[in-house]
């Protein structure tokens, strides 16, 4: 007991001293911990805006933490322990909504903290519908889509034309690889079971509709390798363990264009999602000042367009789209590889957050039970 008190007292003193120290010297903290996804995506953020920012602001150091996949759980633990060590967190829109609801992410005034478009359009208009939560600063639009191997002998030259090739084991035999969760898989199953595109969520609301989707998935269950991290699905396809399957479009781009794997995109019925920043609630003033300063720079029109040089994700700002140019190293035009390209947008879904927020727990449970059967 006594020991704990002494320890607590010393710590409090150290913290107080550190705080006073920081205040007297600088307004903005000179270090930031940015949380992201690692891999090619984090690399694109580094090249497009973190390195340019550090060049403009020498003396600022950035630490990366590749913890975005468990950002929600970790932020909860940090909040409980009263010890927030992150300054800026990259999360998907759905996670941002959850964090915002729980009060773990800070609500922001988008027009105030973000730069306007070059023509003076305010940020809220420039980002438009992408701002799905008061805490969320959108960066890119990506999609979960499918790709297939181009060297499968058993297909005898047939190539998949639409999403239903996933379920067509007669013309396209071989293993599939799909994400181990109901979202997207249920929609695709219904689409290929004769449900009209606009009715899908109405059907999926009913018990019978859910059963119908699972029954359709049942037809390929034996041949499906389920993935939980996108890297797994690319590995499985590159290894020819599976011949067709889903992943993030940027991962496919990297495997096909940068790594020369014999894969081809199947854009049909891709599902858009949005990824962006949140600021954790409860940062100190200096830290917050630094993060806002960085965020204004990192999400301006030019920076978001620059990011598309490194990865095939569409910028979240309307004003960035015309500025998207060629790949930084390979020099190829990036526009045809963007999920938002009209040629790729047949039957495209937009991740239906509200609907899934209402039905997720229920359908998740059914899906997991079905998987275990």
């Amino acid at each position: 007991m006594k020991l704990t008190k002494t320890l607590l007292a010393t710590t409090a003193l150290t913290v107080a001293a550190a705080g006073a120290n920081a205040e007297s010297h600088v307004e903005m903290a000179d270090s930031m911990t940015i949380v992201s996804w690692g891999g090619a995506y984090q690399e694109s953020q580094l090249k497009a805006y973190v390195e340019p920012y550090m060049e403009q602001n020498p003396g600022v150091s950035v630490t990366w933490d590749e913890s975005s996949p468990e950002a929600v759980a970790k932020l909860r633990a940090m909040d409980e322990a009263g010890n927030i060590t992150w300054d800026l967190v990259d999360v998907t829109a759905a996670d941002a909504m959850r964090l915002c609801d729980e009060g773990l992410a800070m609500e922001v005034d988008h027009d105030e903290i973000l730069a306007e478009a070059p023509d003076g359009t305010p940020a809220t208009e420039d980002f438009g519908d992408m701002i799905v939560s008061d805490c969320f600063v959108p960066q890119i639009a990506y999609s979960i889509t499918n790709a297939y191997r181009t060297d499968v002998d058993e297909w005898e030259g047939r190539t998949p034309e639409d999403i239903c090739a996933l379920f067509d084991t007669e013309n396209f035999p071989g293993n599939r690889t799909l994400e181990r969760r109901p979202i997207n898989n249920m929609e695709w199953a219904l689409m290929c079971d004769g449900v009209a595109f606009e009715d899908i969520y109405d059907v999926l609301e009913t018990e019978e509709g859910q059963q119908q989707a699972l029954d359709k998935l049942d037809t390929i269950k034996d041949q499906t390798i389920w993935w939980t991290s996108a890297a797994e699905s690319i590995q499985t396809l590159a290894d020819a363990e599976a011949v067709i399957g889903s992943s993030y479009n940027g991962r496919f781009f990297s495997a096909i264009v940068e790594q020369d794997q014999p894969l081809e995109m199947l854009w049909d019925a891709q599902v858009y999602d949005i990824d962006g920043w949140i600021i954790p609630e409860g940062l100190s003033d200096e830290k917050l000042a630094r993060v806002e300063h960085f965020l204004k720079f990192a999400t301006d029109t030019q920076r978001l367009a620059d990011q598309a040089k490194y990865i095939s994700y569409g910028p979240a700002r309307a004003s960035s789209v015309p500025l998207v140019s060629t790949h930084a190293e390979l020099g190829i035009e990036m526009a045809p590889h963007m999920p938002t390209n009209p040629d790729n947008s047949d039957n495209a879904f937009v991740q239906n957050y509200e609907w899934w927020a209402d039905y997720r727990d229920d359908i998740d449970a059914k899906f997991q039970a079905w998987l275990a059967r």
Partner: protein
Amino acid sequence: MSDTVVITETKTLPYSFTLPVVGGAGAFFGLFVGTAQGSGLLGVVIGFVLCAALAWVALSLAGVKNEKGFKWGCIALFLVAGFLVGGAPGLVLGGLFGWFLGWFIYWIGRGRYRMFLPPYLTGGQVLWHYSFRVICGAIFVFLITPILVVMPLSFNAENFFTFTPEMLSFDPAGYSLRHYRDFFSSAEWQQALRNSLMIAPVATLLAVGFGTLAAIGLSQPHVPFRQAIMAILISPMIVPLIISAAGMYFFYSRIGLQGTYVGVVLAHAALGIPFVIITVTATLVGFDRSLTRAAANMGANPVTTFFRVQMPLILPGVISGGLFAFITSFDEVVVVLFVGSANQQTLPWQMFTGLREQISPTILAVATILVGISIVLLTTVELLRRRSERLRGLSPG
């Protein structure tokens, strides 16, 4: 060594025994080759006939006199056959099989398998003698294969965990050192290596210091509650790691140590202490207490006695405990994920996130390097253990 002495005479065994046994071995291997080529059954038949025929040639035509010539012929035959069937990899496998078959035919046919066994053993006992060794070998293969598979994959020229066709045909173009270059040139990996090298030695020093003192103290018979204290001290080894990690996370957060270098070092030291206590306690069992009394009798104070008499004798235990503590810290991923922050990302942390987010063979390159380090450390431990036994007179050495 005693078992190089021939204790059973060899003689040529009847064909009715040799031919089916050698043919059976041929059928076993033929099954794999046949399956790979399309027909397992055909492979079994061809393997049986071919090997039985070779055994007959060896034992009736070549005999013991031309044994060398037959063995070389056998290797050459299977080199050619392997090359025709499977190219470069087939050449290697064929050569190996030819060498094995040449040896196996004489081993079985001349009854050499009984050479080093007592003549009175029954057939069943001889069979068990060799089955036992085969089972042991199979367990060894089971344990070691996952580690061995990683090593060639780390030299992959591609960015995936895939044995490419080029690799399987031993084409140099299929191999590269790019993942090793990645490791040595990437700032993230180098930072992770630096962090690991800054954390592990300090944690080891703390663990060795505290662990040795605790072990010496607990080996004194007059200490009260020895068993209970011992149990508490080695609990980090027994409690599930994730529980310790979560506990440390909340405790360290409260006292401001979470996400600091000191916090990670302390956490790893706590994990390492049980290893030091256990190894040092084991060495102390063989320590003769009359030596300390003799030292005291000659006027040495306890500190001098400890450093001049006790420490040199228990040093092997201390060092091997230290090595275990070092490896624990160096390989640890769960606790550091909780107690550390992004500034203390260690090698295992980097591997963990890398494996989840981008399955890149750089991880395999790092794994291969770490396996190498572990082998060196464990060899050191083993050598020290032998030295310790020699010092304590337990083995003639």
